[in-house]
């Protein structure tokens, strides 16, 4: 592995340092297809410039149509952008924008298992790319809300039609948002928190 010389490593800017009182962090994941606006949403609410953590995935390909059935190995680098919001002097919230494909999830231990909840970011031009990730969240019991990132040229459907198309369980919030705007992205996170709170009140699991 390449390692940059330790003298050249830029750390957090002074204003980006967490206080020593920071005791614990929680995380939220923002999932969606490529180009749906995950990093935009992370960036619009994060107090730090979004950072990227990378992981390398090595896949052993089983020969089907390659050289006479010989196994091949390919390495794919998967990147995940994330941001941070300081909640109190003790508590920090991290937001991870992650690729929707389930085969990437195991790369980061407990990314979904430990997350408080998820935001499924949806582009109505490609509604179906979010279907699989929503199913995976349901299977794993990860509570989520759906946010429609309103692109200007995207088809607009009535909310109840989208709710039906996405086959959302009753009670799962769905809303429009503009991921570029801090207030709008914050509203999405607030909706997720209120939803989680309502689950806590009823003591139910999703």
């Amino acid at each position, binding site marked *: *592995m*390449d*390692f*940059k010389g*330790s003298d050249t*490593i830029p*750390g*957090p800017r002074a204003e980006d*340092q*967490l*206080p*020593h009182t920071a*005791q*614990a*962090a*929680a*995380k939220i994941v923002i999932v969606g297809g490529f180009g749906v606006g995950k990093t935009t949403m992370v960036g619009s*609410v994060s107090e730090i410039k979004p*950072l*990227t*953590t990378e*992981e*390398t995935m090595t896949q052993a390909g089983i020969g089907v149509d390659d050289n006479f059935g010989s196994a091949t190995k390919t390495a794919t680098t998967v990147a995940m952008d*994330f941001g*941070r919001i300081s*909640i*109190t002097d003790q*508590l*920090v*919230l*991290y937001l*991870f924008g992650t690729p929707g494909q389930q085969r990437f999830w195991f*790369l*980061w*231990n407990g990314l979904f298992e*430990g*997350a*408080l*909840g998820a935001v499924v970011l949806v582009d*109505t031009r490609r*509604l*179906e790319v979010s*279907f699989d990730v929503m*199913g995976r969240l*349901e*299977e*794993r019991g*990860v509570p989520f809300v759906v946010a429609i990132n309103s692109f200007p040229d995207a*088809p607009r459907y009535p909310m109840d*039609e989208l709710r039906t*198309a*996405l086959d959302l*369980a009753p009670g799962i919030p769905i809303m429009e948002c503009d991921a570029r705007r801090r207030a709008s992205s*914050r509203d999405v996170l607030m909706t997720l*928190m209120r939803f989680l*709170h309502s*689950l806590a*009140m009823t*003591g139910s*699991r999703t």
Partner: protein
Amino acid sequence: MTPPQRQRREPAPEPSKPKEGEGKVGNPERMYVVAGPDGERAELDLVTLIVARAVDPPPSATPEQAALLRLCAAPLSVAELSAYLGLPFSAMGVLLTDLLTAELVHARSPIVRQAVPDRSLLEAVMNGLQRL
């Protein structure tokens, strides 16, 4: 125009507990961190906060270790360390396990989702978001 139609899925049944000793066989590269005096091992999380115990790295520290110790003079998540050091998450496990064993850093455990969410935590997060 009608949107495409999805089919909802049900929660998968709880996976049966693996038998003693065979649980991690399929995942030999998984990294662990020694956590606390009871000898319990906890998985390293992206949002485990790491803090250096001393400002100056010992002379025996490798360049990677020295860089990490400098970065976490103030608490920093494993994800941020991975980003600043340009190292994959899996490499962080190796690096941090050594530093934790040598008692050069502290690890502050993350808050993870519970079957029934912690209401006071959620209320604190809502208050924090309101101030954004």
